[in-house]
């Protein structure tokens, strides 16, 4: 869109409530959508704002009681835009200075509002680029603003510095958005990714809402991505061979894991705490094997020996037996999967861990995610401390993607799990989270407040909306925007990687063109003609 269209003039307003804009006679309220972007040309500044409310107003208060004959087109035409007019409320978000000095500083958060009768224009592609940056500046094209074709970009540098979140109720495109964000990080090489792929959607291929297959990261980026699987049979059924099948030994399980699994294993706090006593008694790494191997009588004796309620200890043993039934947990000395994943990450590769059939079992998912992440985090912490400020020796940034994040980050859990620690300590050790969740209200408030960039698809529940928007300035107005998102391909993005909250229509993913744009251009599968061939067969 190159043509600038004027939509109205500022007639009232305040910094707190936003400015009121009277639409000119030629602009219909139906052409304006809440959440769309406008530019206000003030006297000394250009303001970049978001439409937060749309209203029908009238200069004659009695109009609604004494209805004129609107069946007469002439009377209707005369009244509309004059006595009866449309008005919008615009929240000025950013100030774009007009002089050269401000060109250098870029857009600044608005600390004032435009004067009376300032002209209001639709935002153009240039405006969007000057506010959000462009692909040329290293931004990642995530989608377009509402009703525009301009490319809206995220600042990935800012993004990987902090933990981020993707929220939205089921079926609103969280997975698609997450996949896009991961691709962005992959393309730019700003960080390594470790993805806990609960539903096998990221690694090899995924399924869109309309049930056609879309390519996963491995198909797009080839050797840059390693797919680890918990369930090789499931991978084979889906037609590919994982790079590695993950397994764990009993020695990998720690009392902390048992704390995390307390709810899913239905353990009392006494029983869960008993694991610490067991660890103290048998020694780390050995306690699980020793405890599981015990007979009922021996357990009773042990209970009195370590001073734990015997029925609690028996319950703990019964529940822990469930863990031994997982085929990825074994008594033997197994290959150190965590170490292998770490090696790949250190060499700049990206790792997707598919759960296969275990994806539906929260116990398995949480156990594995916790064991791995703890190991990785320990290693990163050590590496980072060894580097002691030597930038070159520092471990590369790592982004860990977790789905169903509220299971790890609920208020009762976040203090105990490694994910809570990562979310809080953020970037100190170059490890951040990409949290994907449909119930953000269940995530601990403290964790939510540390999330740098939030990408939110449609949310229905008031509690979820509140928790996503907590701490954002102008959140009352954003509520309206968030609640009115379309249920697909639309998201509200706010936080560190965008200068202001913005609604985007996420870019296309799944077409041959999108693959050629998103794929790894220099990589194994980067050849776009090959992508086309993969999709449609040789031409």
């Amino acid at each position, binding site marked *: 869109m190159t043509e600038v269209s004027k939509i109205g003039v500022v007639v009232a307003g305040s910094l707190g409530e936003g400015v009121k804009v009277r639409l000119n006679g030629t602009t219909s309220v139906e052409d304006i959508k809440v959440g769309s972007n406008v530019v206000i040309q003030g006297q000394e500044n250009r303001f970049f704002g978001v439409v937060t409310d749309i209203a029908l107003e009238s200069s004659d208060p009695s109009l609604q009681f004494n209805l004129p004959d609107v069946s007469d087109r002439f009377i209707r035409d*005369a009244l509309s835009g004059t006595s009866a007019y449309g008005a919008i409320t615009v929240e000025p978000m950013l100030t774009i200075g007009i002089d050269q000095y401000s060109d250098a500083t870029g857009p600044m958060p608005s600390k004032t509002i435009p004067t009376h009768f300032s002209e209001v224009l639709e935002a153009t592609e240039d405006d969007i680029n000057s506010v959000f940056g462009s692909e040329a500046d290293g931004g990642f094209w995530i989608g377009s603003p509402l009703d525009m074709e301009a490319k809206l970009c995220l600042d990935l540098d800012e993004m990987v510095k902090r933990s981020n979140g993707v929220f939205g109720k089921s079926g609103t495109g969280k997975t698609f958005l997450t996949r896009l964000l991961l691709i962005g990080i992959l393309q730019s090489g700003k960080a390594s990714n470790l993805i806990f792929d609960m539903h096998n959607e990221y690694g090899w291929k995924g399924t869109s809402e309309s049930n056609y297959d879309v390519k996963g990261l491995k198909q797009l980026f080839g050797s840059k991505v390693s797919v680890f699987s918990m369930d090789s049979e499931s991978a084979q059924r889906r037609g590919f061979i994982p790079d590695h099948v993950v397994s764990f030994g009993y020695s990998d399980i720690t009392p902390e894991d048992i704390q995390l699994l307390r709810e899913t294993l239905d353990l009392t706090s006494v029983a869960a705490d008993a694991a610490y006593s067991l660890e103290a008694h048998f020694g780390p790494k050995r306690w699980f094997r020793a405890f599981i191997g015990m007979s009922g009588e021996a357990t009773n004796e042990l209970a009195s020996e370590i001073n734990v309620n015997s029925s609690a200890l028996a319950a703990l043993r019964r529940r822990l037996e469930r863990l031994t039934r997982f085929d990825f947990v074994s008594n033997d000395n197994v290959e150190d999967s965590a170490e292998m994943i770490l090696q790949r990450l250190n060499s700049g590769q990206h790792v997707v861990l598919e759960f296969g059939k275990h994806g539906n079992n929260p116990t398995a998912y949480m156990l594995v995610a916790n064991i791995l992440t703890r190991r990785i985090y320990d290693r990163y912490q050590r590496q980072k401390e060894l580097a002691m400020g030597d930038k070159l020796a520092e471990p590369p940034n790592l982004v860990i993607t977790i789905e169903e994040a509220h299971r790890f980050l609920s208020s009762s859990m976040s203090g105990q799990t490694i994910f809570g620690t990562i979310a809080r300590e953020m970037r100190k050790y170059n490890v951040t989270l990409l949290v994907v969740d449909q119930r953000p209200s269940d995530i601990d408030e403290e964790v939510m407040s540390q999330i740098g960039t939030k990408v939110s698809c449609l949310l229905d529940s008031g509690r979820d909306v509140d928790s996503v928007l907590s701490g954002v300035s102008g959140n009352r107005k954003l509520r309206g925007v968030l609640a009115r998102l379309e249920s697909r391909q639309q998201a509200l993005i706010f936080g560190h990687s965008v200068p202001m909250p913005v609604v985007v229509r996420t870019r296309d993913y799944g077409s041959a063109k999108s693959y050629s744009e998103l794929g790894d251009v220099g990589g194994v599968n980067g050849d776009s003609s090959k992508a086309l061939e993969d999709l449609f067969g040789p031409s």
Partner: protein
Amino acid sequence: MSTPSYEYPFRIGEVIESDTNEFTTQCYELYGAPSLGTLVKAGETEPVYGVVSYSHTSGLDPTRRPIARGEGLASEDLVYDENPQLNRLLTTNFKTTIVGFKFSSQITTYLPPRPPRIHSFVSQCENTEILTFAKSLDFMSSILGANLPQSDDVAAAFIRYACQALPEETELRVESAKRLASLLGNDTRRLEGILRRIPND
């Protein structure tokens, strides 16, 4: 009915009474007053413009009332044919609300510093002049604000007259209606009443 003189075809009459807001014109011809809402000008080089807002016909001598003369005659025209003196005894005057003036060949749409002189010639306006006033409509507030019984009709009549005189201005009717709507923003009923008097021809 009016038949302008051959030499000065656009001349209608002369100003016989004048004040800041309006002037009264006596027509050269009996019943020669322009239609309600017509734009006329008084004066030659720097004329004052006005919109016809009232007209009346009566006997020249206020002490002599007209009497009925048509009993037994077949038509009204015969009354005048058989009494040619009536054209001299009766006279038509019209009042004009002043809406603007010309100064240094520039038309302004607000009141002139002085009203026109008595005996200024009053004549019809050209289309360019009508267009200037129709586009501005600034004067409408003084017509509507005069609160005469006929104010609303004068306003509607002017728009009708302008649309008729300027058929090439296709948007004039709706544009004028919108201007009126913004003037009468707080009185939709009155506005609707005026708009109903501007039918689409």
